[in-house]
């Protein structure tokens, strides 16, 4: 009974994080091409930011059996660039062969799915080897090698239910079937006669949850996903179809190729290397990958999973949480300083006339544009624009962490400047006048009298901003910053235990925000000083009636 309640809570939390979080991150197929075609202003020449003898390959490292993240180098896994984890899987094995053929050192760059094409176009990576299909849409932006894997469409169903025994797509008459949004998987559903087509879902995670919860009878996907889903979750089974009984598909849809920058000389070289890998060898590599991919857990309960996930991935979660804290703390502090500067400049009294007045008006105008712009656009969009845009337009390759801190800082700065401006305006005019009357100039008035009061007053708002930042850094997963949300996605992408993995993240986020709130409350109290003051009593007390007045 109790466990059922837990499951319900898990489901609700999971559904919430799916709706709010995952949806934002990983529409697998068509979107990446769209995003990148917007950003491509002047295409980079395809040279990577790394050195000449490196072959930099982008992948999610979270899409088994093609690619996944693991904690050691077993089964030929390769260390992920700038990270303590390793990438394994079919794609990694292919990438190794390609790198070997090119005579270069393989570097695996773990990149969010939506960031792969922009990363390639901006020259941050040399190739995408990430289970990516060479669709016509993507071909507008990047080139593709020859096919290095071809898969069949299958339907993932629940074990022990009627559809498990289906042999033909015709057997799915009356079944509630869905597939991933913006993929050809969804388009083929209509080939099943009498099917009840469900709304397309954003990602595999959502579909697995829906299947497990009985909201759908099955979902269409490619074979590798079917194999890994049924291996990872013992409640799932995969229905394969014999020739002629399955879906009719186009070759470009089921094929998987290496993505390469437009007109790169790499394309020819890679094709040559791929042609040297035989069909049998490919099947063998895929079978190995399916076997080696992060193991399924049999019939463990959610609670056992929860414990195991924390045990096995503890360091990964903690690194993610550490990164989240680092980014949000530095971002909040820098943002606070930016806000302070902007707020103070905006409240400098206007000179009545002269050039100073014009200059100040221009500066105030620019600052208003800054504030309005960054308050008025989503941070996730700013992250994409700043990180990839700086690479494309100015050839600046920002370090991911620096970019993350930069984005959070200017974002927080925009909010804080308004909070601080409001705080300054709300300080009694008498405080300014008294400071001026003792001869202080504007800066002295601000630093000695006004700002200390403003800062005390806006401390709760600052704490709020910090808490918001801890949560909102999760959107930075789009530029592949390894913060907590990104790490959790990797963990969940490997073990397929989405409830449990994200529940761990949920708890970690809460611990962080709760601790921060407590600490700030403590600081507020410290700043306020003691509620009573001590009378200086080293002199004989006089008869004055008010010598005790203040001690109430």
């Amino acid at each position: 009974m109790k466990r059922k309640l837990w499951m319900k809570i898990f489901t609700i939390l999971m559904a919430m994080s799916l709706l709010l979080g995952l949806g934002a991150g990983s529409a697998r197929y068509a979107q990446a091409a769209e995003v990148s075609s917007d950003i491509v202003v002047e295409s980079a020449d395809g040279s990577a930011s790394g050195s000449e003898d490196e072959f930099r390959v982008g992948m999610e490292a979270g899409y088994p059996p093609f690619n996944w993240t693991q904690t050691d180098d077993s089964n030929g896994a390769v260390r992920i660039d700038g990270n303590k984890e390793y990438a394994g899987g079919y794609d990694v094995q292919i990438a190794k062969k390609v790198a070997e053929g090119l005579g270069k050192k393989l570097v695996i760059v773990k990149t969010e799915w939506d960031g792969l094409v922009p990363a390639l176009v901006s020259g941050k990576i040399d190739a995408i080897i990430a289970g990516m299909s060479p669709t016509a849409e993507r071909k507008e932006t990047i080139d593709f090698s020859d096919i290095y894997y071809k898969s069949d469409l299958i339907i993932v169903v629940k074990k022990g239910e009627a559809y498990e025994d289906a042999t033909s797509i015709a057997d799915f008459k009356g079944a509630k079937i869905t597939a991933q949004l913006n993929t050809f998987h969804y388009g083929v559903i209509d080939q099943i006669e009498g099917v009840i087509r469900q709304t397309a879902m954003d990602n595999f995670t959502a579909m697995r949850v829906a299947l497990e919860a009985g909201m759908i009878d099955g979902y269409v996907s490619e074979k590798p996903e079917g194999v890994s889903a049924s291996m990872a979750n013992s409640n799932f089974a995969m229905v394969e179809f014999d020739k002629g009984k399955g879906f009719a598909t186009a070759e470009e849809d089921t094929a998987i190729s290496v993505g390469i920058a437009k007109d790169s000389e790499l394309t020819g070289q890679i094709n040559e290397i791929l042609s040297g890998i035989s069909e049998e060898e490919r099947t063998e590599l895929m079978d190995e990958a399916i076997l080696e991919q992060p193991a399924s857990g049999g019939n463990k309960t959610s609670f056992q999973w929860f414990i195991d996930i924390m045990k096995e991935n503890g360091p990964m979660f903690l690194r993610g949480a550490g990164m989240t804290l680092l980014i949000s703390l530095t971002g909040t502090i820098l943002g606070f300083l930016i806000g302070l500067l902007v707020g103070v400049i905006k409240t400098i009294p206007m000179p009545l006339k002269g050039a100073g007045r014009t200059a100040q008006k221009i500066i105030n105008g620019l600052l208003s544009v800054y504030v309005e712009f960054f308050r008025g656009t989503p941070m996730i969009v700013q992250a994409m624009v700043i990180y990839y845009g700086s690479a494309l337009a100015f050839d600046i390759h920002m370090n991911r962490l620096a970019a993350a801190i930069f984005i959070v800082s200017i974002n927080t700065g925009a909010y804080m400047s308004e909070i601080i401006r409001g705080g300054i305006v709300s300080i009694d005019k008498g405080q300014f006048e008294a400071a001026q009357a003792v001869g202080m100039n504007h800066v002295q008035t601000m630093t000695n009298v006004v700002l200390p009061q403003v800062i005390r007053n806006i401390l709760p708002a600052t704490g709020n901003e910090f808490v918001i930042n801890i949560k909102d850094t999760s959107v930075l997963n789009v530029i592949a910053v390894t913060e907590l949300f990104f790490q959790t996605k990797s963990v969940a992408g490997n073990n397929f235990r989405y409830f449990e993995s994200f529940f761990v993240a949920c708890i970690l986020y809460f611990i962080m925000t709760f601790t921060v709130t407590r600490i700030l409350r403590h600081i507020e109290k410290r700043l306020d000083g003691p509620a009573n003051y001590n009378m200086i009593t080293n002199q004989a007390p006089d008869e004055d009636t008010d010598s005790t007045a203040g001690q109430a």
Partner: protein
Amino acid sequence: MEKVIEIQHLSKSFGTHEVLKDIDFTVNKGEVVCIIGSSGSGKSTLLRCINLLERPSGGMIIYNGENILDEKHDIHQYRTKLGMVFQQFNLFNNHNVLNNCIVGQVKVLGRSKEDAKKVAMKYLKNVGMEKYVNAKPSQLSGGQKQRVAIARALSMEPDVLLFDEPTSALDPEMVGEVLKVMKDLAHTGLTMLVVTHEMAFAKEVSDRVVFMDKGVIAEEGTPELIFNNPTQDRTREFLKRTL
């Protein structure tokens, strides 16, 4: 007599509202001058123009032989020579009593912390607040706040102390303690310019009384003259209403 501040043809308008009209007025060293007049006559505005909290619309303010309304004049430097005591006290809320009296000395006059503390303690003792050095303004009564405000102004060791109705915001039982401090100061030879509604104080303490009406100085003279033999009808009417 040595002039501390000399005002010539001072005028001040807020928009089209002319609040001060062609004021000529001098404060001499060691003098206690009280400014009286009905509400809205421009007393506060005059005082605020003198220390440039309001920018005069016209005229001159001559201090040390220089017109401080000249663009190039350093008004911050000038303001340190004028202490100001406000009706609403305006103690720095983020500082305790001692720091209220120190911060200006250290940050503006560049005194060392120790020197500033010595000076502050001396004046806090003068106003009877030396035992409250650790208190925050919010922990003090109105009379105590005003005494600290006086000590803060004195700590800058100004040439003139300006008071704008220093007792008007006080509960009646606290008026006395502040007036007593002011009387003591007057007797030390400090130059003081006091806007007040306390006629008894003006009568007793001041060397000269200025009566303002509708933005002009209607009459000025010794307390005996103003209070006992005013020459102007409007002075007489005002005194009849207030006394």
